[in-house]
C-alpha cells in the first residue's frame, strides 16, 4: 500500500473552483491512482495570515471529496484531506488544535529556524515539510530534527519542483537541500510525496527511489519510506477517532473510512465547546 501525501489544491483561499480546475484535480487523483498510489491526500496550503472561519465549522474544510470524485468506481482508492500552514512566527498558531477534527492530516511549512524549533515543541502535528526548492536561510541540525523524530513527526520531501522546474538553479538547490535533510535525519522518518498541481509531474514510487539512491539513500531503507507515510496517515486518523491517539472504544470503526466524519464531528464539537467554556471560566477566576 503506497500513499501520496501531497496533491496540491489549486487555490490557497476559500474561493470556489472553476470547472476546468475541478476536472484537473480529478485527472490528478486518477493518474496517481494508476501509478500505484492507492491512498491519496489532497493538500490545502494556506499562509498563517489567512483567517480561517472558526465560527462556522462546516465551512472550515473547502475540499468536499464526495462532490469531486465518485470513489466507488475505482477499487481500493481512498481520498483524504490535509491542512498545511506556512509559518513565519509560531506564536500566532496557538489555535491550530481547533482545526484538528476537520482535516485528516495537519502539517506545517516553517520558513525560519526559530519557527521550526518552536512548532516542534509546542504544536501537535503529523508532518513537517521544509521548503526545499528555495534557498534555506538556516542549517538543519540533527539535535532539533531528533526531537521531532522522538515525537513521531515525519519529514516530507516533495519531488514536484525537481521535475517541473525549467531553471537549473532550483534543481541545484533542491538536490543540495535534500542531501542536507538526509544527513540530518540519518534517513529516518522521511516521506516522499509529489506536491504538484499537474498530472505531468507525477512519477511512480520506485522510479523516484531510483533517483534518490544516487543521492545517498541505501537500498534497504527504501521500504521505510513507504511505512512512514502509512504511519503518518494512521496517526492523523487516530487523532479524530480515538482518545489522545491511544484508546479506541468502538470495535467496528474502520480507521481509513472518512465518509461519516461530518456527522460525528457535530457530537464531539458540542462536548469540546462546553469543556473550553468551563476552562476559560476557571482561568478568569484565578486571574481575578
Amino acid at each position: 500500500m503506497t500513499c501520496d501525501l501531497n496533491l496540491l489544491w489549486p487555490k490557497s483561499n476559500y474561493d470556489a473552483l472553476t470547472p476546468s480546475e475541478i476536472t484537473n484535480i480529478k485527472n490528478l487523483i486518477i493518474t496517481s491512482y494508476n501509478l500505484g498510489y492507492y491512498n491519496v491526500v489532497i493538500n490545502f496550503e494556506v499562509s498563517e495570515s489567512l483567517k480561517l472561519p472558526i465560527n462556522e465549522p462546516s465551512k472550515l474544510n473547502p475540499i468536499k471529496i464526495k462532490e469531486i470524485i465518485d470513489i466507488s468506481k475505482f477499487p481500493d482508492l481512498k481520498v483524504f484531506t490535509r491542512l498545511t500552514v506556512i509559518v513565519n512566527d509560531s506564536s500566532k498558531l496557538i489555535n491550530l488544535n481547533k482545526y484538528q477534527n476537520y482535516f485528516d492530516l495537519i502539517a506545517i511549512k516553517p520558513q525560519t529556524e526559530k519557527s521550526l524549533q518552536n512548532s516542534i515543541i509546542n504544536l501537535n502535528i503529523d508532518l513537517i515539510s521544509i521548503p526545499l526548492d528555495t534557498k534555506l536561510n538556516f542549517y538543519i541540525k540533527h539535535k532539533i530534527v531528533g526531537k521531532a523524530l522522538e515525537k513521531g513527526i515525519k519529514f516530507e520531501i516533495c519531488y514536484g519542483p525537481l521535475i517541473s522546474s525549467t531553471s537549473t538553479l532550483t534543481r541545484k538547490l533542491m538536490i543540495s537541500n535534500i542531501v542536507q535533510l538526509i544527513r540530518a535525519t540519518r534517513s529516518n522518518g522521511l516521506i516522499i510525496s509529489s506536491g504538484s498541481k499537474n498530472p505531468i509531474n507525477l512519477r511512480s514510487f520506485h522510479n523516484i527511489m531510483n533517483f534518490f539512491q544516487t543521492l545517498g539513500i541505501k537500498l534497504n531503507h527504501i521500504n521505510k519510506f513507504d511505512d512512514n507515510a502509512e504511519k503518518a496517515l494512521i496517526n492523523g486518523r487516530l487523532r479524530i477517532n480515538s482518545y489522545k491517539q491511544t484508546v479506541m472504544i468502538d470495535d467496528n470503526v474502520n480507521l481509513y473510512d472518512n465518509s461519516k466524519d461530518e456527522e460525528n464531528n457535530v457530537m464531539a464539537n458540542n462536548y469540546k465547546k462546553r469543556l473550553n467554556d468551563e476552562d476559560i471560566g476557571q482561568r478568569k477566576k484565578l486571574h481575578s
Partner: protein
Amino acid sequence: MVRLKQRYILFEVLYPPTDGEDFQTYSESPTKALLSLHQESPPQFTPKTITNTIKSSIQELYGDYGSSFAVQLNMKYFNNKTSTGILRCTKTNFHFVTATLPLITTIEGRKVIVNCIHVSGTIKKCEDYAIKRNLQFMRRVRFLEKSENGTIITI
C-alpha cells in the same frame, strides 16, 4: 577471461492528460483512464529520437563525466503499439540511466512520463517480463469493464 557484462532496462512511455479531448473524458471511467495513459506512440517516436533525448538529459544532469558512461547506450527494441522498449547499457553505470529516466518530461514536443519497469542481466528475461505485464494489464482492463457494467465478478 571475464566477459563484458550488460544490463537491460525495460521501460514504458505514458501519456498523461494535458488538453483537448483527453482532458475532459479522462476522468469518466477507470478503463478510459487506463487506456488513454497507455496510448499508442506517434510515428515520430523512433529508437533514435528516444535515445537522443535520454542522452541529452544525462548530459544536463551529470555533465561530461556522466554522459561518458552513456556513450554505449543502445536501444535494442521499441514498439509503437504498446509503447514499451528495451535499453542496453554497461553493468557498472546503469544507475546513471535509471536515475535520469523519471526526470524526462518531453520527447519530440509531446509531454510524457517515462516509467522504468524492470532491470535484468539478459534480454530474454526482459521480454518475458514484458509479456507477463501485458497479460496482467489485459486482465485488469477486463476486470474494470465488468465492474462498470455491474455484473458480479468471481475470480
